[in-house]
């Protein structure tokens, strides 16, 4: 569960961002564009409960 999304449309710069020492892969993700309302949120945490997993379908309950 990532709490913060960073927009980086350029692929090379996204790679640099991912490799930066201050980038926390446990809390942040890099997206080409951040959906409205999600960019400034910093709310890492929550729970995931798998309901079913198969090669062609994944079902889960997410509580944020």
């Amino acid at each position: 569960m990532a709490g913060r999304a960073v927009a980086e449309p350029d692929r090379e710069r996204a790679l640099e961002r991912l490799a930066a020492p201050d980038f926390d892969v446990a809390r942040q993700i890099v997206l080409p564009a951040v959906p409205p309302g999600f960019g400034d949120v910093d709310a890492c945490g929550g729970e995931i409960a798998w309901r079913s997993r198969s090669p062609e379908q994944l079902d889960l309950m997410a509580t944020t």
Partner: protein
Amino acid sequence: MLSELVYPGWQATVDGAPAPILPADLIFRSIALSPGRHEVSFVFRPIVVPAGAAITLITISVGDCSHRHPGRVRKAVRVRPAWRLALIAWLLAAFALRVHWLDTRELNGDEAFGYFFALRPCPGIVQATLSLREPHPVASYFVQKAWSGIAGDSEFALRFASVW
């Protein structure tokens, strides 16, 4: 974020409503969730599967119709030239569908692993297979090595052998 690769054909729903899949960290699937409890599903529904099934069914039915001669002893079947052309066109369309977009995505996962595995010299492939307890038979890497020596190592070339 789901630690599974972004791949065409996957669709997501959140609480039953379609939700866009966003490529997180360049390669992983992710969806945006508002605070609260949500039921999330990822389903693999590639368009090429029903399209390929339709082509296969039509091909079988056309081929079947062209071979039916009830009440007669089987003899040489004369297929009309128009049918023959239609069948050839249909098979070519199926083949085009199979190779379409073959090189639009970079190698990932097992594809990349197989490529790097096949770069080794032949004794090295056997040795690495044994030492890494690689589950795939070594012949596949030999085939890939020989094929890439002929056709090159572009995404299209590397995947083309698997088309057959």
